[in-house]
């Protein structure tokens, strides 16, 4: 656990943790608003976003792709809302129509474009490339953390995801009360004069930003899993929104750490020689955590007293 850990595991693990937290935070509210699958939709439309960005700029570089992906997410959200309202179609179906169509367009564009010279393919988009985000310059082990030369060579993904994670945390804190009240009782929030439409849209845009930044580093599987699994598991642990948030962050971190360790070292333990996909394993671990809370979580079942009399 010395220099090798710092060189090869520290940064991917940190990136995994930060990405998981950035997705899990807005995921809490999406789940309570019964919009869990908006995260699914967003992560699918990231692909056409980066392809269009590539077509426009002709280079594979982070900023245009992030912008392209964020733009695609905004377009998707607007399209879903438009189809829902204009066609009077239920939200699930409207989402399904939108994200599959945009995804298909993305795949087609990708096939039509000559991307053989650059690293841009669907698999990368889905699975990410967490294992490759190593800190090669960190030759002195933990001492590299205070070595400016080594620090300068940190993978740029780490800085980006840290920034986005900080932004998501800040937005959650600042808009905490608005989010809470408009999620619980939108009619009351309207009557208070709160901009409930803007709050809902802002939440989805925040989720999109988190998804895009996380996607850049870890691929879209982690994104969907982290939007849903840690908050869902957290909901089964407590009846307080504040505590639910803390639980979801804890589960997100746990999934990222355990998933990364299992992917990298698990196969070695059972005698295999090659590591498996870290992104996939992180998603799997988050699912196992959710499964455990579904079976044993103290608040796993509905109480239903009020619900029955209310209907």
């Amino acid at each position, binding site marked *: 656990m010395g220099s090798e850990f710092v060189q090869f595991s520290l940064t991917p693990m940190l990136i995994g943790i930060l990405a998981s937290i950035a997705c899990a935070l807005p995921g809490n509210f999406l789940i309570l608003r019964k919009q869990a699958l908006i995260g699914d939709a967003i992560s699918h439309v990231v692909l056409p976003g980066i392809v269009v960005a590539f077509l426009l700029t002709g280079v594979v570089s982070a900023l245009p792709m992030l912008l392209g992906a964020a733009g695609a997410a905004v377009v998707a959200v607007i399209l879903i809302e438009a189809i829902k309202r204009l066609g009077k179609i239920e939200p699930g*179906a409207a989402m399904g129509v939108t994200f599959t169509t945009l995804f298909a367009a993305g795949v087609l564009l990708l096939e039509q474009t000559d991307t053989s010279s650059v690293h841009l393919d669907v698999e990368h988009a889905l699975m990410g490339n967490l294992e490759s985000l190593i800190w090669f310059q960190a030759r002195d082990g933990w001492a590299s953390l205070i070595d400016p030369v080594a620090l300068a060579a940190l993978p740029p993904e780490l800085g980006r995801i840290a920034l986005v994670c900080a932004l998501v945390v800040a937005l959650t804190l600042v808009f905490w009360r608005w989010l809470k009240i408009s999620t619980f009782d939108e009619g009351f929030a309207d009557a208070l004069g709160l901009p409930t439409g803007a709050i809902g849209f802002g939440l989805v845009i925040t989720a999109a930003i988190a998804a895009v930044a996380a996607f850049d580093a870890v691929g879209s599987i982690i994104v969907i899993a982290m939007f849903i699994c840690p908050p869902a598991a957290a909901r089964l642990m407590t009846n307080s929104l504040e505590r639910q948030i803390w639980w979801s962050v804890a589960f997100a971190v746990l999934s990222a750490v355990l998933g990364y360790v299992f992917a990298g070292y698990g196969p070695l333990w059972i005698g295999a020689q090659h590591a498996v996909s870290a992104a996939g394993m992180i998603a*799997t671990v988050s699912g196992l955590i959710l499964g455990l809370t579904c079976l044993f979580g103290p608040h796993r079942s509905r109480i239903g007293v009020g619900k029955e009399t209310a209907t």
Partner: protein
Amino acid sequence: MNPFLDALALNAGYNAALVGIGAAMLGFAAGAAGTFLFLRKRALVSDAVAHATLPGVGLAFILMVALGGDGRNLIGLLLGSAATAGIGLLLVEWIARRTRLSEDAAIGAVLSVFFGFGIVLLTVVQTMSAGRQAGLEGFLLGSTAGMLFQDAVVIAVGGALAVFATWLLRRPMTLVAFDPDYAAALGYNVRRIDLAMMGLVMAVTVIGLKLVGLILIVAMLIIPPVTARFWTESSAYVIWYAGLIGGVSGYVGAALSTTAPAMPTGPIIVLVAASLFLMSLFVAPARGVAAAVIRHRRFQRRVHRRQGLLALSRAEPIHDDFTLRVLRGEGLIRPDGVATANGRALAAKTARDEHRWDIAREIHQDAGLTGRYDGLTPIEQVFTPDEIAEFDRRIGGPRALGSSLGGTA
């Protein structure tokens, strides 16, 4: 001849023809089977089912290789995918029923976790010596490139069977999709029919894996029913319309994709279906956007016109800008807001209508009538000319403008 027309006429080679027929059948089956899910407002369950096929593909490959067989056997892979898709389906049901989590959270959890685990297995497969050229990634997005003749046969036969099963089960599934309580009252086992519905969706998904891939098969299950819904209000027709739209998308899409090398079949089929959807969204006669916008604007004008005339008939001031614009536009008031002769006449007629309603409500105090007194329903629609003549006799002819017309209070 044009390669696209060749393909449409099934002249582009034996395999292409089989793929075309298979895609049409798959599209038809997917559209029809997806209709039941859509009507049950559970369209995205198909998303979970589709993603949950991936670990099955990986496990089947590993198992077949371990048993010394060819890991790429399509039927084996499809059976494996059906197994994990089934488990995923049951898990979605179990989570939604047994915990406080809602179905959308259950769908999202199952699809991401199964897919993640599937990716883990794919990386395992890639490290196996037999797995280097397994081509299992083709199941993500579908590929007809390396398709063998027998693969095409599997799709065509599977598609035909799915269509047949849909036709066989159409009545109970329609019933359950529209009104589960009524179906239960008739003695149908709703849970079992629901499972059959899901099972059919699963079968279509599995058959479609090779052709369009697991992400885009979701589109084939959702887009055709949503599109069909624009064109009909009848439950029986929406299934066949959806099947037709799916079938046409599959056939045309497959033909289009043979025209150029970089035209992947799955995305093209989806985009054909999506363009049908977009067209329907805007131009469909009753539910389309254009029709709805026109109707809404007309309705809004009607409301404002009527409210304006009511105000004129009571000699009340009008404050609403849009009301004033509507009245001015029809020449019912002058720019300064005073009623024109025409306006006065129509206001008098409105006043008479209101009067007739007052009398009508006094005479006929029944429940059916009160709901029609909504300010817009013409009295002639509710009462016969004889009855209206009777009201008029009681009123004693139209009154002069400005006479009091307050409610019955």
